[in-house]
């Protein structure tokens, strides 16, 4: 157990520091990084992430830490976010974790996996209202992804590989 806590501390510290100072950080395991601040929205609050008037392309992925297929495809969204940063592509990961799991599951997950994309939590129980507003084609299953720019938008109730995701995003960059 002690060993576990120590490893966890190491991990937390390692996530925070940049590669050059890793060894220094490893020697100071007592430095504990606080869990990341989590932005939590209801659907009305989330709307600002669902449309744009600028020339960027936004990929909104709906996921949760307990959703195995979501967690499996998450690295592809991260990878795309990194690779397409200079092409004005932005990835937003909208977590549907239950509020009572934010501290125990979601925040540790963000730290552990060093998520670089913006993560926000959607806490709005009236899903029958907001699911069709996000897309008429969404049955409610996750993972689900919305890609949009100021001219068009496309919704996907499916899992992605990196190549599939890149192919879709390229359609928006033409």
């Amino acid at each position: 157990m002690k060993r576990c806590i120590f490893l966890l501390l190491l991990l937390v510290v390692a996530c925070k520091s940049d590669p050059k100072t890793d060894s220094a950080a490893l020697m100071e395991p007592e430095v504990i990084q606080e869990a990341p601040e989590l932005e939590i929205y209801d659907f009305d609050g989330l709307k600002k992430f669902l449309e744009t008037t600028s020339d960027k392309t936004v990929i909104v992925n709906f996921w949760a830490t307990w959703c195995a297929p979501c967690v499996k495809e998450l690295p592809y969204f991260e990878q795309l976010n990194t690779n397409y940063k200079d092409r004005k592509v932005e990835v937003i990961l909208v977590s549907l974790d239950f509020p009572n799991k934010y501290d125990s599951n979601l925040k540790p997950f963000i730290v552990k996996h060093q998520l670089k994309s913006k993560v926000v939590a959607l806490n709005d129980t009236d899903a029958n209202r907001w699911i069709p507003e996000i897309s008429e084609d969404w049955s409610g299953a996750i993972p689900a992804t919305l890609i949009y720019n100021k001219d068009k938008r496309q919704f996907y109730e499916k899992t992605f590989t990196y190549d599939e995701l890149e192919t879709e995003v390229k359609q928006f960059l033409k």
Partner: protein
Amino acid sequence: MYTIKTFIAAVSFLVISAFTTSSAGYKVGDVATDFNLKNIDGKMVSLSNYKDAKGFIVIFTCNTCPYAVAYEDRIEALNKKYASKGYPVIAIMPNNTTVKPGDNMEAMQARAKSKGFTFPYLMDEGQKIYPQYGATKTPHVYILQKTSKGNVVKYIGAIDDNYQDAAAVNVKYVENAVDALMAGKEIKDKETRAIGCTIKV
């Protein structure tokens, strides 16, 4: 030449319509298929076994999805309230148990026992039934009404409008639908949506 064209057209139509039917699943008003699936007690269950039922609350659900777990007690309460009135709950576990071992028959039996389920909890062996209904996630509800045509789909969707807290529910979609059917009234919300876990194939 003409006949070949007609033949090709007919075949393509059949292929296309067969494809769309199977992928889209049921709409309200469609007649739902019966099934013969294994229950947690080892017996096979079909809708036709229920001679006295007026209809069914068919719920695709599982052990491993947090949304399904959040609704377990409410599903049990639905069966307690409506089975005796002719609308029993029939729960079907649609996941591939190789992908989700936590949903295998032993796990289903254990979960049903610990939660005291009084409704049948059936395994969609071979995953043949859920695609016909068009279920995409757990939990996913289909309310059927027994008619001379067969079991007609009357409602598709969520159990209620608050997955987090049963005490904070504003609209009980399933209860309202069954109450309307029993009273011979029009169902107000015939289709609703909720977040759920993708059915694992």
